[in-house]
């Protein structure tokens, strides 16, 4: 069978509109991308495409204790179980509802598939001049065995408003699952948006995530991607700046072991002058894990006075780990400051020796140095609960009992 067959069979029984049918057909015609596609050069979907998935989700109930177990502990939570929105908070100036369809011009085949078949997701509208004090946590639970779930989310932030969001996708079915996640964010004038993704799913889960962010004048948007779990993760993160004085910030940590695979694909499109972008991705690879980074910065012809900075640092901590990195700059304007840096290396043996000679055990010494490497990203997380979780997960994955929160 395989995924394509599953999808075709599923689509037959759906009452798709004409547009959606066209979209689905164009997806089927193209199929899933292969490694001969430049954007998927280092990322093979072979294993995913070969497997069978269940597209009809069950409707299971979930206990509060389970939710609390996976929640960060913040007050405002949006909870999805098997694609159904089961809980959403009441917040002044914020309208939260379930799936509402919207168009998006996206050429990516997987986004097309999402667009054609997704029936679940959230819609958040923040009114003008609203500062949402507390972060909102969005939890997606899955209990259907071997499920393929697709979410299609939309966030619209009105002028002069601020919001912080934490997203967590969690599988509880103990089987291999696939999620195709798509989020569209519109940042209006003078808004501040922070979006945090905790990707700490169980070891058989596959995630293909795509986030498109459209920024207007004076807006600041930050996306933090924290990858600790999951078998296969692909993050597409696209920023489009459509007004002066925008700022786009991207930070990421990938801490992988075993056979984990994670691919961070970022694209910043500087369309207007006087904007900034900062990008910092750190990768730590253990076991037989494999990491991919592809960062592209595009500066259009009239987008002068752009400051774009990108860095990708990687630590290879085991014999069988691999990293493929492709930092790209495409620049058509002359009065810009753009740079990218990429490093791949190991922990400093002298620093390790220094600590060991003072009685620090090898794994602790390594953990401290690794934390120091990752701290540039972790220390800058603005939500304390998120910072704590990241520190705990880091210690746990490196097999040490250390508390990094000082």
């Amino acid at each position, binding site marked *: 069978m395989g995924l394509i067959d599953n999808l075709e069979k599923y689509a037959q029984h759906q009452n798709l509109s004409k547009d959606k049918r066209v979209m689905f057909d164009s997806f089927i015609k193209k199929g899933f991308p292969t490694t001969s596609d430049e954007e998927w050069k280092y990322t093979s979907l072979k294993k995913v495409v070969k497997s069978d998935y269940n597209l009809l989700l069950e409707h299971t109930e979930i206990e509060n204790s389970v939710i609390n177990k996976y929640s960060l502990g913040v007050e405002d939570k949006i909870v999805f179980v098997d694609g159904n929105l089961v809980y959403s908070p009441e917040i002044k100036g914020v309208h939260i509802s379930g799936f509402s369809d919207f168009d998006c011009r996206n050429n990516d085949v997987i986004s097309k598939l999402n667009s054609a078949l997704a029936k679940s997701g959230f819609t958040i509208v923040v009114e003008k001049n609203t500062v949402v004090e507390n972060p909102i946590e969005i939890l997606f639970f899955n209990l259907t065995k071997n499920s393929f779930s697709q979410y299609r989310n939309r966030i619209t932030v009105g002028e002069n408003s601020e919001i912080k969001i934490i997203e967590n996708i969690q599988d509880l079915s103990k089987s291999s699952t696939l999620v195709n996640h798509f989020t569209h964010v519109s940042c209006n004038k003078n808004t501040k948006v922070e979006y945090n993704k905790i990707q700490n799913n169980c070891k058989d889960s596959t995630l293909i995530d795509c986030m498109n962010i459209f920024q207007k004048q004076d807006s600041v948007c930050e996306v933090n991607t924290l990858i600790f779990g999951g078998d296969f993760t692909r993050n597409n993160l696209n920023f489009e700046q459509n007004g002066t004085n925008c700022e786009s910030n991207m930070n990421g940590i990938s801490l992988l072991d075993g056979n984990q695979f994670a691919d961070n694909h970022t694209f910043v499109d500087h369309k207007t002058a006087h904007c900034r972008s900062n990008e910092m991705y750190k990768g730590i690879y253990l076991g037989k894990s494999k990491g991919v980074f592809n960062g592209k910065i595009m500066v259009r012809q009239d987008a002068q006075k752009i400051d774009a900075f990108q860095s990708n640092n990687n630590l290879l901590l085991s014999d069988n*780990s*691999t990293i493929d990195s*492709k*930092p*790209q*700059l495409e620049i058509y*304007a*002359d009065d810009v*400051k753009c740079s990218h840096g990429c*490093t791949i290396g190991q922990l400093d043996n002298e620093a390790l020796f220094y600590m060991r000679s003072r009685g620090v055990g090898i794994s602790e010494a390594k953990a401290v140095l690794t934390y120091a490497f990752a701290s540039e990203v972790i220390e800058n997380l603005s939500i304390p609960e998120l910072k704590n979780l990241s520190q705990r997960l880091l210690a746990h994955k490196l097999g040490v009992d250390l508390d990094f929160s000082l």
Partner: protein
Amino acid sequence: MSDIKKQSEDELLEEVTSSEYKYGFTTDIESDTIPKGLSEEVVRTISAKKNEPEWMLEYRLNAYKAWLEMEEPNWANVSYKKPNYQDVIYYSAPKQKPVLDSLDDLDPEMKRTFDKLGISLEEQKRLANVAVDIVMDSVSVATSFKETLAEKGIIFCSISEAIQEHPELVKKYLGTVVPVRDNFFSALNSAVFSDGSFCYIPKGVQCPMELSTYFRINEAGTGQFERTLLIADEGSQVSYLEGCTAPMRDENQLHAAVVELIALDSADIKYSTVQNWYPGDKDGNGGVFNFVTKRGICHKNAKISWTQVETGSAVTWKYPSCILKGDNSIGEFFSVAVTNNKQQADTGTKMVHLGKNTKSTIIAKGISAGYSDGNYRGLVRIAKGATNSRNFSQCDSLLMGDKCGSHTFPYIEVKNNSSQVEHEATTSKIGEDQIFYCNQRGIGTEEAIALIVNGYCKDVLNQLPMEFAVEAQKLLEISLEGSVG
């Protein structure tokens, strides 16, 4: 071209070549051409005309068959009208420019460039192909050079001659670094290459002169499908320079050369290129398409260093690469690529680390002006077994004018955890404050820019053989002339 005109040109050719090549190496000069287009018949004809052995014909036919199955690549970030491969003449006698009576007959534009480059009068005459007897002096120098080389056992001749005289060497090494099926253009070149250079440096021999010097005296006419094979045996050392700072006008629009370097244990090859082919006019009409495959293989403790200054050609598509197969081998790549007007360049390098303790350095400087596009595309691959390998890459771009583009596409693939890879890239423009500083001190804007550009490229220019470094600096100035508004 009418037949009569062609005939007279051919006669002229023969006349010129028979005198010019009296002491040279190019042996069989054919004055006849074959019809346009490419077919198995054409490949057979080329091989027959060159009186090649059976194995060579086999090689060419294999390449031709491979080429038929391949598609012209379009992944490079350049756009051009694809040449019609059936509209090209694949074999013709080496082209020669008409002989001039004196330098006064020279195109004033050309003369101006020569002067700016600071090329001596004698050499100007030779480069411009002014009547031969005046050049006698240099020719005799060339002959003595050849004797010196022969004494050391160095083989340095055209590849056609090598196929006849040293078939064992050619057979052993040809196509080992750039296989026939490597890419579209290398397959094409393997099928139809007309000539090129062959160089063999025996064990432990240090080439007594820079082969670059040799070229200054006796420049080999570059053909359309040039094939270069350079073998440095164990412990030997050689420095080789191709190209010339002088502007090269050539009728052939398509150039697909292949260069293979083989550095055996502890050998050291330095390969420098100065490329100044016709870049087309200001509106991007005409100009040479330069699609070159250059690759070297390093055995144990060997070193290959590529240096290139690319200022010409309408479209450049070139990635001199090093395969660091042996332990402790070293690969280097130093490049300055200048694009102006509507030129497009997609150039960079590949460093493939296979052996232990291998090291590579990449310094690429791009300068884009006018409406041009400059791309750096590079690959650093560290294989699983390349323990303790090290790479440092730096690719900087300088933008002049708001209509040009500069792009970097580095690919970094690391499979070994004891390796260190660093890559950094910056894009910037010449600061107004820097220009102002120079202006204040009485340095004009054009000169100030030349000064700054030279400083920017210094890391690369320093790698060139001495006499070329000076000229290359001036060449940069000329290439960027008028690009500052």
